[in-house]
């Protein structure tokens, strides 16, 4: 029996070629528009760079200031990228010959960005190149270059509990100020309980603002946790000591249905890791902001011995190759920057992968706890220079800075 398929006409095929060309001829001769709703949203939310200007400076404490940043229209930034509360901006600054970058959580609310400003809050860090530079040099009118809002330290209702116990230390308060404002503005919907650790009342940042938010919005509760304050000087409602598991439980809902968000200095993360383990809540309910730049790799238990102090790095970016020397206690990124070479960077904590590079030869040390590389990266010799420390001379290939 003949296959039934023979009943399909093969002659139908030939006109298809002509038809296709006629259809093409009927298309508009206007150059297509280089945009659509998806591209426009992507561009609005993820600009490669934002050019801003300092519009106002607010003293937060003796060693801490907030900077209100507005679009620098002369340089081409018309509108600020909107963001989810908790995100950070990476600030790019040349300090002398060093192209520096640092991530700072946005302390203003998402709504403020629609009104035309971001606020970054910078606290002086001993020996901190960027914080010292900003606090000494930024004045009203200073031009500032920042990244798109970045990071994953945000509330997500499909994942997180309805109550979030926010644990803040020092300038780690900034993303929570943004979140509290977002809750107050109705842009986020959760109960925010803030346990904010400071040494003494003089070191509390955003004290009045937090108080106002707590008064204004029933979903926000603020508890100051003061370590170095005498009993008689404790403000009403404050707790003495450090943030511990017991303290968290004291302010957490009785049913145990809560998330914990942590943002603060590295020592605080290390201390709180033991405390949050005692809470008996699932791992998914404990989220931490990025670790920050790791220093002194030799203090890590698995750091090898006999690492030479001075190393050579031969770096290729596009068609330019240079060989530089540096100290092996610095990350690959820091060594390049100290030699005046800018590399792509965002989080500087190993997480975001923005500095993803190819290690052609040589060996690096990558602390396990901040090794967020993809599996295949490990097989193919790809590294994140911000958290890779040279153990030998290196040859690397780094993407250009856009």
């Amino acid at each position, binding site marked *: 029996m003949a*296959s*039934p*398929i*023979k*009943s*399909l*006409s*093969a002659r139908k*095929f030939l006109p*298809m070629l002509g*038809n*296709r*060309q006629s*259809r*093409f*001829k*009927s*298309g*508009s*001769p*206007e*150059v*297509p*528009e*280089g945009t*659509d*709703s*998806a*591209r426009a*949203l*992507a561009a609005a*939310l*993820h600009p490669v760079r934002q050019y801003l200007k300092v519009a106002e400076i607010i003293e937060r404490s003796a060693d801490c200031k907030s900077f209100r940043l507005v679009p620098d229209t002369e340089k081409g930034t018309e509108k600020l*990228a*909107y963001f*989810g509360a908790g995100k950070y901006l990476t600030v790019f600054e040349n300090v002398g010959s060093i192209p520096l970058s640092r991530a700072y959580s946005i302390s203003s609310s998402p709504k403020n960005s629609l009104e035309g400003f971001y606020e970054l809050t910078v606290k002086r860090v001993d020996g901190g190149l960027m914080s010292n530079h900003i606090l000494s040099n930024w004045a009203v009118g200073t031009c500032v270059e920042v990244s798109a809002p970045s990071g994953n330290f945000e509330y*997500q*209702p*499909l*994942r997180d509990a309805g109550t979030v116990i926010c644990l803040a230390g020092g300038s780690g308060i900034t993303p929570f100020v943004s979140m509290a404002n977002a809750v107050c503005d109705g*842009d986020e919907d959760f109960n925010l309980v803030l346990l904010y650790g400071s040494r003494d009342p003089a070191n509390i940042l955003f004290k009045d603002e937090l108080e106002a938010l707590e008064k204004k919005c029933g979903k926000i509760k603020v508890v100051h946790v003061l370590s170095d304050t005498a009993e008689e000087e404790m403000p009403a409602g404050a707790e003495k000591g450090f943030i511990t598991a017991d303290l968290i439980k004291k302010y957490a809902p009785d049913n145990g249905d809560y998330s914990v968000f942590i943002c603060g200095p590295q020592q605080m993360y290390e201390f709180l890791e033991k405390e949050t383990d005692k809470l008996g809540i*699932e791992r*998914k309910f404990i989220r931490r902001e990025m670790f920050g730049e790791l220093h002194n790799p030799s203090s890590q238990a698995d750091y090898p011995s006999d690492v030479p102090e001075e190393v050579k790095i031969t770096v290729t970016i*596009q*068609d330019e190759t240079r060989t530089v020397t540096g100290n092996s206690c610095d990350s690959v990124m820091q060594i390049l920057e100290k030699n005046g070479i800018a590399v*792509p960077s965002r989080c500087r904590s190993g*997480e975001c*992968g923005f*500095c*993803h590079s190819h290690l052609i030869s040589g060996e690096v040390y990558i602390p396990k706890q901040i090794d967020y590389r*993809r*599996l*295949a*990266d490990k*097989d*193919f010799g790809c590294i994140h220079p911000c958290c890779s420390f040279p153990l030998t001379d290196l040859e690397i290939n780094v*993407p*250009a*800075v*856009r």
Partner: protein
Amino acid sequence: MKKYDVIVIGAGNGGLAAAATCSKAGLSTLLLERHNIPGGSASSFVRGRFEFEPSLHELCGIGTPESPGPLDIQFGNMEAKVNWVKHNSTFRLVVPAKEGDKDSFINEDGVRVSVDARMPVGFEAFSRKLDEIVPGSYDSCMKAFELSEEMTKAFECMGEGDNMGGIFKALKYMPDFMRLTSHTIKEGLDTLGMPKKAQDIFNTYWCYMGSPASQFDFQYYLAVLNGYIKNGASMPRNRSHEMSLAIDKSIRDNGGDIWYNSEVTSVIMKDGRPAGVKVNGNKEVFADRFICNASPKFVLSDLFGKDDIPEKQIRMTNARKTAVSLTTVYLGMNKTKEELGIKDYSIFIAPDSDSDKQYEACGDFYSGFCIINCLNEVIPDCTPPGTSQLFLTTMTFGDPLKDVKPQDYKKLKTKVAGFLIDTCEKALNISIRPYIEEIEIALPPTFSRYLNTPMGTPYGYMLEKWDSLIPRTIQYMQDQPFDNFLFCGASQERGDGYGCAYYTGEKAAKLTIKAFREGK
């Protein structure tokens, strides 16, 4: 400034294959990519203790070690080593019952469904299973698979020659080739006498090509299906980032240069032809020939001066229809797949069993169409012990984002993700929400950001009846804007899919190499 033989624009799958093929043939090759890693869709990302596969559902064309498929052979040719993991199922189609469906029944999950088809690998097994669900469909199904063998051979012929040569070869060996090419899946299956209900199950993979049974040509669908059903599909061991890095390595090993974070911002013309490109707005690089993996529409609007492109190219781009856009929710779960009650790698949940009705429903994010994948089913240890990862996908045609403002976007993402999760929970009678440890949501703007295509489509142009595979293949050179500037990737003849993009990249490279050898 060094002048290259070839500049490849874009390190998506097509661009990677093109650059690997050119550099291996000894051409001095520069691959330019605006993102900081290779692959476009073929990538991965890390959240907490999970590494997610961003786009790959399943890879056909790998075959088996004994009988390697065309894609495995191509990776061998490129000297790109990837660890493939085979999986031994095809798909499960679940259509929740509509009110009043008298044929509906309660399935093993306790859900009332119109269709629940879990289809095995292998022609015989697949046909038997189909016959079990829709009695009387065995013969037509086996006949379709027989034809699919022929069509696969025709595909291999096409791969051997350049455009017309390959087609003539295919014609010579396959008398039915032209018949199937000029008819749709529906016309073909009707002719074979396949019952409608069986056709619906048979057509489940239509969404992988983004064109429903009344549009898509029978010949191409059979060839695609052959790749999935005959031997089963595969996945790379360490997400598709592994595939991209393997090709990246091959390019470097063969002397090619790759610049990341290096966006082509304009094309430099000389004597009416492309002669070079400007990178990141400041650096100029020159070459004799160009292969472009970027989306033609935005290449015309962004890279060329208005008077530099032939009008025909503009009309052509405007006449074509942008293919489907995808929305994906990535979930890191703090339970194993067994604990969650997931038993299949790929479950297609559809609001209707008919592919054309599915297509019509996908005008917004809430069609009820959702593919749920659990990678642990194929690669059990792709997440830490006690956990698993899920990957929910829906598709949209057109523009469901018209009035969305940046400040509404985060809430929209959460709403869409919540809807997709609910869809899966209901259709499979499982619980997902309480166990989400990590979540990432990608709507068309996310894909637009990483792929830079119209509406973020990874699929190129829709493979419509009038703009189907074979006319595209025959007219490939006619479709190119300049004889030294060839496109590759999903916008070209084979449409979307990893294998298709690698194929078009290799083909554009071969045409380029040939032109060099002939001294053109």
